[in-house]
């Protein structure tokens, strides 16, 4: 059964059951992934996946059901199970299906239709070759990986909204391992590209090797308070980890500490943070959110002042305002929650070297681990395994490892005293390197 036939079966059965408030979300994707090892393609995958999720509101309560089997029988089960799920819940009083009528921004269609598989295979082998050739201390490349993805998202609802969007592109990943005196040092790098022409294997391989080789000879650092420069990629990871603090829903539920802070300074004056759902170079740009609401660019923090929070339909209704087009599902099978599309910390005017030059003695962070466990958006606390460089006299002096940085994200926002101009976008978050006045370092006593 095609998706259109399935959609008709679902909406027909929903109408028969007397449902008047519902939507049907659909995702179909194809991905091709190639990994190389020791000069040949050692792993290849060709995956297709589809999924449909039906959501209905009955007496103010929202039930969900999803499937990966497009059949007449599943169409009925979807409607029956979502209705049953709604039946057991309690009304929040704010559930709503988008009524339509909004203006959608037409985005340039950049996702490639398909990839050249032979080319991908050559590129995977080439990543490994480039990484190994980059430095004589390189011993292996556990991941030389390239992946092509194309996914279509469609949304139709009981108010006549009927939308679709295609996303896609290429991801290149390289993990490099160097060895010296029997010890191994690793580094990894990622590149995301909209088209095959943009792919820059050498840049990814070089960055991974630079991290691996750069950490050779590293030792720990005395514990204490240090100014900390986050590399642009680590700053992206920090923002990604704590993005939920800007969710209107999290604020309403006490899971973010930004309640009542709109219009007040929550960050240093140089901080301007935006959500850019239409960003041309992004692999995840969309004209509509996962509830069908038009997306639009917005400023969350302007020169340190909290200007706006993000809302989906339900949290917006609770706040007495309109959705900001930030209703997002983690997968087709998930419920709608609130999240940015492309969260971007606006770059500053100085180069990375100029940013470092302002630090007499500090720490430059090039790797952070354990965010899923040791950073908590509800409290803002983080304590993270780190790797990087000691900064002395405004320059990188020696590699450091086996230390943690600890602090609180809310305080960190206020302590950002420098932002470089080396902006990079990665996985829907963009940032340049940034300097934070002080964080706790735990290393040697």
């Amino acid at each position, binding site marked *: 059964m095609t998706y259109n036939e399935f959609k008709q079966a679902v909406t027909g059965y929903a109408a028969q059951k007397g449902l008047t408030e519902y939507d049907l979300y659909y995702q179909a994707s194809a991905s091709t992934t190639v990994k190389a090892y020791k000069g040949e393609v050692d792993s290849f*995958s060709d995956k297709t996946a589809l999924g449909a999720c039906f959501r209905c509101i009955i007496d103010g309560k929202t039930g969900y059901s999803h499937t990966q089997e497009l059949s007449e029988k599943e169409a009925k089960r979807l409607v029956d199970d979502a209705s049953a799920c*709604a039946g*057991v819940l309690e009304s929040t009083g704010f559930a709503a299906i988008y009524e339509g009528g909004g203006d959608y921004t037409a985005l340039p269609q950049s996702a490639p239709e398909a990839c050249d598989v032979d080319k991908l295979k050559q590129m995977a082998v080439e990543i490994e070759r480039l990484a190994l050739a980059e430095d004589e201390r390189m011993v292996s490349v556990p991941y030389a990986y390239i992946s092509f993805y194309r996914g279509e998202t469609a949304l139709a609802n009981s108010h006549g909204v009927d939308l679709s969007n295609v996303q896609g592109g290429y991801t290149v990943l390289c993990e490099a391992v160097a060895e010296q005196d029997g010890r191994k040092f*690793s580094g990894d790098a990622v590149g995301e590209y909209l088209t095959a022409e943009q792919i820059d294997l050498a840049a990814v391989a070089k960055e991974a090797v630079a991290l691996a080789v750069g950490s050779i000879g590293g030792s720990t650092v005395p514990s204490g308070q240090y100014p900390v420069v986050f590399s642009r990629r680590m700053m992206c990871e920090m923002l990604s980890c704590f993005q939920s603090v800007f969710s209107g829903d999290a604020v309403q539920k006490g899971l973010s500490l930004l309640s009542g802070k709109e219009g007040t300074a929550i960050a240093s004056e140089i901080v301007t943070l935006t959500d850019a759902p239409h960003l041309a170079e992004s692999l995840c740009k969309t004209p509509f959110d996962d509830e069908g609401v038009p997306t639009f660019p917005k400023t969350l923090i302007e020169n340190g002042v909290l200007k706006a929070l993000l809302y989906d339909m339900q949290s917006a209704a609770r706040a007495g305002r309109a959705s900001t087009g930030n209703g997002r599902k983690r997968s087709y099978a998930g419920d709608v929650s609130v999240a940015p599309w492309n969260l971007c910390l606006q770059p500053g005017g100085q180069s990375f070297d100029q940013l470092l030059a302002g630090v007499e003695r500090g720490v430059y962070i090039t790797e952070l681990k354990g965010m899923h*466990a040791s950073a908590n958006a*509800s409290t803002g606390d983080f304590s993270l*395994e780190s790797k990087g460089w000691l900064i002395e006299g405004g320059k990188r002096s020696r590699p450091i490892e*086996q230390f*943690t940085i600890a602090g609180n994200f809310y305080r960190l926002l206020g302590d950002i005293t420098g932002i470089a101009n080396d902006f990079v976008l990665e996985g829907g978050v963009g940032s340049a390197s940034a300097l934070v006045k002080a964080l706790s370092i735990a290393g*040697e006593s």
Partner: protein
Amino acid sequence: MIDRETAQLVLEQAVATGGDFAELFAEDTMRSNMKMIDDKLDTAIKGKRWGAGVRVFKGLRSVYATTNDLSRDGLLACAKKAAAAIGDSAAVLDIVLTPTVIETAHPVKLPLDSVALADKAALIRSAYGAIKAYSPEIVQAITDLIEWDQTVLIANTEGIFATDRRAYTRLFNTAVASDGTENQTGYDGPGRSAGFECFEEIDVQESARGAAQRAVTMLHARNCPAGRMPVAIDNGFGGVIFHEACGHSLEATSVAKGNSEFSGRLGEVIANPKVSATDDGTLPGNWGSLNIDDEGTPAQRNVLIQDGVLKGYLIDKLGGRRMEMAPTGSGRRESYQYAPTSRMTNTFIENGPDKNEDIIASIDNGLYAKRMGGGSVNPATGEFNFAVSEGYLVKNGKITEPVRGASLIGKGSQILLDIDMVGQNLALSQGMCGSESGTVPTNVGQPMIRVREITVGGR
């Protein structure tokens, strides 16, 4: 789900271009999730995961293809894609499928479809209420009931044709305590490889109060001091230290290609002689248990470390080819969307010779990590981290004030040697483990242990 004749045709198609092994994995999984937050039972989701993956090997090369179309034509098309990618020579295998009946060691009495939604709602309300009732400082609670019921079919060119059922049920309690300017959180997430009947054994109110107690305790805790110090790590989820510091580095995923610090070290002393560690997928009804793994190999008990000596690795079929060793019942995957790789099941440090009170008494100035959170590791370097979710300072052999926000970091090979006391209260705790083949349920565990010295990431 798929008949034997279809499976036979699919496997023949998969090896038609010269593959020397092929496998068909199909699944039909019902998933359900119900959540209470902000005093409202406000989310209920039910759905079906449905799809298949065909994997083909030729020597050490592997190809994986997936589909959601489980009709004969859909599966044959999927097998054809895989075959086209592995080579262009002729078939070399004869395939004789032998239906195998899997006797379950993990019976499911109350699968998710057999329990009324109202009964699930009542259980959730009971736990939620216990979190909120714990203290006026608890400002928010989240109780999430997660269930999935998976039926898999596994057929391969070695002749396996088997189906298995795995049911998982877990209640996740989260408490948020606040004084108006600061938040602290506490978690507890008991679960079993079983149906809803697991709540006859699991005390959901106790779990809820535990989450609340941690949040409130941490709200009144000061920041953990930073530096290197001795740490006593208690039982249950404390076992995450072994999971991260050693377990991942014993998986063929990293060992086979020489990317683990424990590659090629079988028979060597890698840990303190007090340390013995096991991965046991056979424990009845346990969160990480299996009847057969996702490659059809029966689950087994794997001795990893015996009295400090490295005894074994965790090996899947492809890793086994590279290592020239037999699979250990460790081939796992989150779903048909992933090719399987070597993973842990229920992994724990065995009881040792020391008394818990002696462990605490031995520390002059250090940390008692009562509850741990998750962590991660880089097997190539052995560098790992994990979070302390409930910690206390230890002064002169006595547990004193609570401290918050700490993580522990180290290198696996060093930390195993630095575990110098092992207690006697072994307990297992449930977690979700992420790796190349997705996120799978695993148990971690240990008795209380002492680490001689480790970097504590405080402030």
